[in-house]
């Protein structure tokens, strides 16, 4: 029985006769099979399928350039590197052995390890643009701690350094000086949002958007999207379960995104 047949069987047995495997999630499973990776458990696959459909129903999926779901139950670290938006493109590289933990994701060592998505913002991205952009991570770690600096970063104009930092180092398409962008929580799904050419805000893990701050958009510095490192010169000890880059989110989209991810990670 193939992965698809088994998953459909489980969905049917589980009472979800109307549920089917989303074609984009099936493409992730197919890529995993083709490369010989270890896919998550059947139960985890069902949850992942739900995550994809939830993101689609919320209008979030279409805003993403890349989506990496690092955490699963039973999937190996190679499966965790697949880009769910386009499984044959931008498979992430594990640089210098970040630690992989089942159900949680990747942890950096603070000295040299990180995740390189190989997705170059400004070259490969179509949703992430100068005036409409977002990026972020789900962090299991306290992002107010300096050792966890830079759970996600692209360039000196686009980085999330620390949730409580009292400087302009949390940026998205803006250069120094940038406004201070702080967050109301230090774990969970967080990110940076640029809804216009003149404003930026925090994407907060309680599902709300932070206050809008003025920061004129500057041209995108073309760089690869990294998790757990800033320009491969600063390294984080954070543990990250999911990450993305794409266009900006409305308040409703962001709230639905947080709910979908929280539901998924809470269930695996």
């Amino acid at each position, binding site marked *: 029985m193939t992965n698809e047949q088994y998953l459909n069987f489980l969905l049917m047995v589980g009472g979800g006769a109307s549920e089917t495997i989303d074609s984009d999630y099936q493409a992730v499973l197919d890529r995993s099979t083709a490369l010989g990776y270890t896919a998550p458990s059947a139960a985890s696959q069902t949850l992942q399928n739900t995550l994809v459909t939830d993101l689609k129903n919320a209008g979030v999926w279409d805003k993403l350039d890349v989506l990496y779901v690092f955490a699963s139950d039973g999937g190996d670290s190679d499966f965790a590197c697949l880009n769910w938006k386009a499984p044959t493109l931008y498979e992430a590289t594990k640089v*210098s052995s970040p630690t992989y933990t089942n159900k949680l994701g990747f942890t950096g060592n603070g000295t040299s*390890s990180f995740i390189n998505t190989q997705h170059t913002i400004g070259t490969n991205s179509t949703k992430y643009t100068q005036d409409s952009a977002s990026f972020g991570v789900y962090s299991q770690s306290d992002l107010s701690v300096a050792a966890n600096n830079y759970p996600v970063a692209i360039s000196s104009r686009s980085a999330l350094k620390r949730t409580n930092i009292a400087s302009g180092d949390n940026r998205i398409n803006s250069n120094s000086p940038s406004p201070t962008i702080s967050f109301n929580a230090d774990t969970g799904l967080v990110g940076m949002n640029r809804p216009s050419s003149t404003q930026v805000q925090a994407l907060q893990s309680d599902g709300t958007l932070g206050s809008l701050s003025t920061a004129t958009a500057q041209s995108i510095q073309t760089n690869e999207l990294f998790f757990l490192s800033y320009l491969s010169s600063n390294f984080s000890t954070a543990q990250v379960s999911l990450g993305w880059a794409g266009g900006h989110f409305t308040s409703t989209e962001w709230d639905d995104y947080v709910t979908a991810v929280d539901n998924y990670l809470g269930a695996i």
Partner: protein
Amino acid sequence: MIVLKATQTQFDALDGYKNGDNLLKFAKDGNDNWIVGLQVLDDSAFEPIHDQLNELECIDYVPIPDS
């Protein structure tokens, strides 16, 4: 924290080694040394270069000053 330090010759030989989704890449520490974390020694992806990694010098990590 203990990390592994590479000489320039070791760096030239090992940096950029790739096996599947796994890449070995040295970073600079606060003393301008090429270093990498101890985790690479236990990574099965780097088994083919394990002997060379074992020859790297163990040193105390010197953080890069926060900019």
